[in-house]
Each structure stands twice: as C-alpha cells, then as structure tokens.
C-alpha cells in the first residue's frame, strides 16, 4: 500500500508547480486570459518543450506513456494556478480520442503535432438540447462516397476557436437518444459549411457554438463505437478535472485560512472565532475526503479493475466533486466577507472554475444518479 508519487511523477508535479509559481501568478494569468485566444501561445510552446503535451500518449507514438496518476499530478498543480491553456481540451480530450481511434498514418501525424505543440484540437459532443447526455445526438452524418457530410449544431465547444481540427459526434443512424448509431468524425476547423459563435465562460475560457451545414468529415471510428469512445473520454476527463478541482480546493482553503489569520474585526483575528474555526475544519475535511475519493478512482484505473468498478468510482468522484466544490467555494467567499465578492481577488475566479468543472461532463446530481444505477444494480 503506497499513495506516494514515483520520483518521475513528483518531478513532473514539481515542474508544473514551479511554472505556476514563477510565471503564472494571478496577474500574469489574467493577462493571459485577456488574450483573444484565451491563452498564451508562448506558454503552449513551453509546455511542449517541457514534454507536458506528450504525457497521455503511448511511447511508440512519441509520448511519455503516462497514466491517470501522471495526469493527476499535472492537473492538480494547473488547478492551483488556474492555468487557462487548453491542456484538457486539446491534449486529453482531442488527443485522447485520437489515441483511442484506429491507427493510421494520418492519426499518428496528428498526435505528433499535438505533442510538438503545432496543432490545437477540440471535441464537439454537447448539443443545445443534450444537457449531460452523451447519447443525445441530433447532428446527422450522411455518407458521401468514402467520406461523410455533417449537419447540425454543437454547443459550447472548448478550444474550438483556436483548434485546427475538431472531432465531432454525429448520428449515422437511429433516433435522438439511441445508444447505437453514433460515430466520431474529424473535421477541419476552417471547413466549408462550418460557422462558429465564440463565447466566454465564467471561468474565462473561450468556447464556441458550432453550426454545421454539410461539412465534409472523415470517420475515425465505426458507426456503433462513438458512444463508448465518448464515455471513455468522459471517464478520463472527470478524473483529470477532479485533480484540477482538488488543486483549487486546496488553494481556496489555504487562502481562506490565511485571510482568517490576518483579517481583524473586534480587535482580534477573525480566525479566533470558533464559529469560523469549525467551518474551516469542515472545508479542510471536505478537501481531504475529496482527495481520498480521487485517489480511489485513480487506483481503480491504474490497477485495471473491472469496467464497472472503475465507473462506480468515477461516478462517486464526480458526485462528491459537486458537493465539495459548492461547499468549499461557498465558504471561501463567505469567510472573506465583502472581499470575497470582488472580482479583483482571486477567490471568485477559483470558485467560478470549480463551478464550471462541476458542470463539465455532468454535474454532481447527474453522477449521483449514475452512481445509484451502477451501485444499487449490482
């Protein structure tokens, strides 16, 4: 039994932590997100040089061959710095799906370009009506010779504005909520028939709504494999985003604790009030419990437990994430008083990122129900 990082993983974690400390303080980060692209290309090239963009890819694809633990180590530190560069969208989501798709020369070349930082990717799975249901797909794929044409809408696609290539889920056959008949397709971001409306989210990310009208596309999996691939991606991303959330929760708790030690009212530090001490013990416990359930999910993946067992752990993780995010975020604002309400302070920015992670790939309630279905059925 050992919950330590390996030496290599610790080095990776430290290198991200160092980057955040030296080059990504709150002020620097705010400059980065104010960019038109929502992130810094210079930083992206640095990530490539440091090898971070290669982490989840197999060694024979030029990757680092990292697993869930490596991703967790990186994401936790990125969370602490509120790093806005599209590591999750481009490397984990887009890159992850490419890696899971059938081998081809073109695929390997795309992965190489993700790794060297020259290519940005995005994955378009949500639709205006789909809410958190991956299988709710109306976007239609029509065969045309040996390619396809896609028509439909995709909502709030992360990194779609900067992406060169986008993977899109679309329906080859069946009805709106059928599990069968969904495939994944690769399209060019500047393809004819594709239009984008760029929007900002509360955590300063740039997303885009996509309208597709007969967009030429290339299938990257069979007609009945799309949903399973999306589900696999969701599982990996929940674990990665949970690690980011853990970093944020730790940061918020530390910031709040520090504030309570220094802020004085009634002639004493507000941290001397027992009412607040108990609340901070509660948020401390919530973060530790959350770390434990994250480790549990990571271990189940690293040890190749059964698919059901992994799914139960991941659903539990995301369910707890929703509760802990609201609890810890809410207390951080409350204990800062009026200061906690200001946009100038970093606290609100961390809270909004937590809320955004809560909504990503299904909120706490959604996964609590998935957990119930999985756990009570067995």
């Amino acid at each position, binding site marked *: 039994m050992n919950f330590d990082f390996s030496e290599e993983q610790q080095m990776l974690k430290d290198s991200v932590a160092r980057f955040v400390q030296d080059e990504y303080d709150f002020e620097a980060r705010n400059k980065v997100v104010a960019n038109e692209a929502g992130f810094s290309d210079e930083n992206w090239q640095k990530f490539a040089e440091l090898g971070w963009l290669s982490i989840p890819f197999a060694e024979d694809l030029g990757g680092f061959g990292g697993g869930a633990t490596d991703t967790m180590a990186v994401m936790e530190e990125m969370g602490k710095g509120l790093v806005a560069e599209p590591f999750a969208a481009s490397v984990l989501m887009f890159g992850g799906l490419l890696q899971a798709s059938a081998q081809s020369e073109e695929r390997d070349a795309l992965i190489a370009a993700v790794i060297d930082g020259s290519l940005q990717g995005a994955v378009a799975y949500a639709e205006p009506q789909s809410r958190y249901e991956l299988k709710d797909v109306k976007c239609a794929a029509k065969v045309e010779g040996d390619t396809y044409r896609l028509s439909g809408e995709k909502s709030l696609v992360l990194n779609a504005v900067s992406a060169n290539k986008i993977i899109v889920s679309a329906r080859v056959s069946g009805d709106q909520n059928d599990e069968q008949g969904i495939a994944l397709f690769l399209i060019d971001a500047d393809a004819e028939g594709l239009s984008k409306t760029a929007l900002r989210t509360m955590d300063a990310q740039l997303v885009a709504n996509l309208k597709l009208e007969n967009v030429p596309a290339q299938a990257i999996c069979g007609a009945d494999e799309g949903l399973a691939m999306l589900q696999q991606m969701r599982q990996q991303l929940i674990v990665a985003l949970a690690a980011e959330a853990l970093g944020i929760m730790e940061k918020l708790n530390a910031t709040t604790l520090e504030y309570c030690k220094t802020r004085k009212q009634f002639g004493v530090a507000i941290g001397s009030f027992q009412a607040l001490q108990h609340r901070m013990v509660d948020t401390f416990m919530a973060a530790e419990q959350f770390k434990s359930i994250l480790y549990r999910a990571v271990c189940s993946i690293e040890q190749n437990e059964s698919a059901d067992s992994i799914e139960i752990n991941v659903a539990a993780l995301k369910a707890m994430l929703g509760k802990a995010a609201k609890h810890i975020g809410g207390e951080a*604002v409350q204990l800062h*008083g009026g200061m906690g309400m200001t946009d100038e302070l970093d606290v609100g920015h961390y809270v909004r990122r937590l809320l955004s992670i809560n909504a990503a790939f299904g909120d706490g309630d959604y996964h609590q*129900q998935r957990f119930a279905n999985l756990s009570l059925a067995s």
Partner: protein
Amino acid sequence: MDINFSEAELAFRDEVRAFLKDAWNEELASQAKQPGSYKDVQVAWERKLNSKGWAAPLWPVEHGGAGWTPTQSYIFENERAAVGAPDVSPFGLKMVGPVIYSFGNDAQKERFLPRILNADDWWCQGYSEPGAGSDLASLKTKAERDGDHYVINGAKIWTTLAQHANWMFCLVRTSSEGKPQQGISFILIDMTSPGITVRPIVTIDGEHHLNEVIFEEVRVPVENLIGEENKGWTYAKSLLAHERTAIAGVADSKRNLAEVKKLAAAEVNGGRAMIEDPIFRQRICDIEIDLMALEFTELRVLASMSKGNGPGVESSLLKLKGTEIQQSIQELKLDLAGYFGTVVQDGASNEQVGHDFGDVARRGFMMSRAATIYGGSDEVQKNITAKFVLGL
C-alpha cells in the same frame, strides 16, 4: 388560529391586483429585462407606487404612509412578487426615510421625505469601511466641525449603487472618547460635493454594483446632521432592525421557486424532464417545505406586531432562513441551466447562446452569495441570536 382573509382584506387584494395590472405593465416588465435599465425602471415603478400612495405603506400616515395592517402588507408583497414587479430600492424608502421621520428635525422631514417617496433622490448607504465591516463601530471616517460645516475625511467601501446616488446617509466619527459606539454621528451627504470620489468595484458576477467612496476635505453643512452629535449609533441600529426584517424575501422566493419549477418542466435530460428527475424533485421539495414554514414564521411575526407586541424571538430567523432559501433557489436555477450556466452572455443574443436563462442564473447565483454577508452576516446574526434570544 385563523388565517382567512376578511371581506375587507379580499377587497384590498383585488385593488392591489388591479393596480399592478396597470402599473407593472408589459412595457415596464420588458424594459426591466434590458441590461443597464435598473435605475430607470426602479424610478418609474416607484413613482407609480407613490402616485397611488403606496411607495412607503408602512411609514406613519402623517409622513406619507398608507396605514396598512401587517396583513395588507403581506397581501401586497405576495401580489407584487407574483407578477414579477421588483421590491422598492431600500436605501431611501426603507432605510434613511424611517431614520429621518423618527430622529430628524422638521426642516429635514420637509426637505427629504417627499423626495424620497417620489424617488427624486437616489440614496446610498455609507456605513462599511475597509477596516470596519462586522465590527462597524470601529469606523474611522472623520467629521470635524468647522463653523457651520463638518469637514469629512476618510473612505467608505461596498457602497451599493453609489454610482447612481446623489445622496448618502453616512456614519462618521465625531468623537474618539468613550466606547467606539459613542462617538458616531449620522449625517446626510450631498454626493455632488467637491472632494468625493466614487470608484467602481466589480463583483464576482462581473457587474458593477459596488463602490468605494473616498472623502477628501468634503464640507457638509451642519444642518445635515440627524439628531444629536455622537448619537448616530442608536439611530443606525434602529435602521438595521428594519433592514433585517425586509431581507427575508419570502414572497420573491415563492415566485422564484415557481419559476424554477416551470423551467424544470421544460429542461430535458436524456428524454426526461428535469422536474421528473428524482434528485432535482427532492431538492425542489426540500426548499419548498422550508419556505412554507418560513412564510408562517413571518406571519407569526406580523401577527405579534399587529397586536402591538414586539416582533418576538422568531423574527431572528427571518434573515438567516430567508437568505439560505434565496441561495438554494439560485443554486437550483444554476444547476438547471447545465453547461449554459457557465456562459457570460455579454451582449450575445439568446439565439446565439442557444439558451435563455443560463446567464441570468449565473449572475443570480453569484450575487446571491452576498445575501449572507451584507445586512449583518450569517455569523453575526447567529451571534446575536445566541446572545439575545438564547441568553448565551
């Protein structure tokens, strides 16, 4: 035990409904949805109330009040909220107005009260300072007597909508002797006076509601002092009590919860409406049951007051429970919006976003966090309840 309305009360309800139909009309309701319309809508709405004699129904009749019973006030609040009309802006009508008619002199009453009733002035509240929040009595903004004027130096913070205000009611330090509470005065400041700087503070919803107000050698005529010098704390405390009951917001919460139910019936996940979702249903019901009880807690307070008794111990939970419920309803709405609750709409149309309440839900949720901070934070309310209600 009787909660039926009398004939007269039913007739009053009809009168309120008729008034609202006309006063909170389509035009005003749709104007209220436009960004940046807040002040214009409030002023137009409050003037309609005033022309009916209902701008400040709970003020004494001699100062322009309507002489309503608590039951009438309850009826009005429910009808108003049900049609989505806003509450009045509190600073003039609910805060400084009562202080002026209770502690001001005749000249002040004549000068300010009619203008407050008709929303001719926009008031802001200058209490909190960077170093004086929960511990308000430690405030440092200084007013020094110089002939017929006070000269004011210092800084206020978190001043809501000071950017719109032409008047501020302000707590200032006029003496440093004795207990901190004893050297505080209550003074009215013309916001156009030279030496005042208003700086915006952007909040976590991305909007500008709050401000910092800096005073540098600001000269305020002595005639703007309310009551006696160094008695301001007593006046302010009577006002805080006012603020704390108005803050429960039961009628608005009823309306907001009803709206959430409607939205939940239309929002679909995997072929099932969210109103059928077991967890979401339970969350709605938990809140609704709490709100049903709070409504009766408020009625108990009203009943006790209408018998001429004090508000009773149960009044202490109005703000605590009321704000908890307000926040839970905003949370429901944000969660209901799903991914779209993350979007900052910023001028984009609903059509472009692909959703029609995500942005409102996000802003509402973010600002609702402040409800347990202002007007006496949750923690301070509980301290007060522990001490004065439970005797701890």
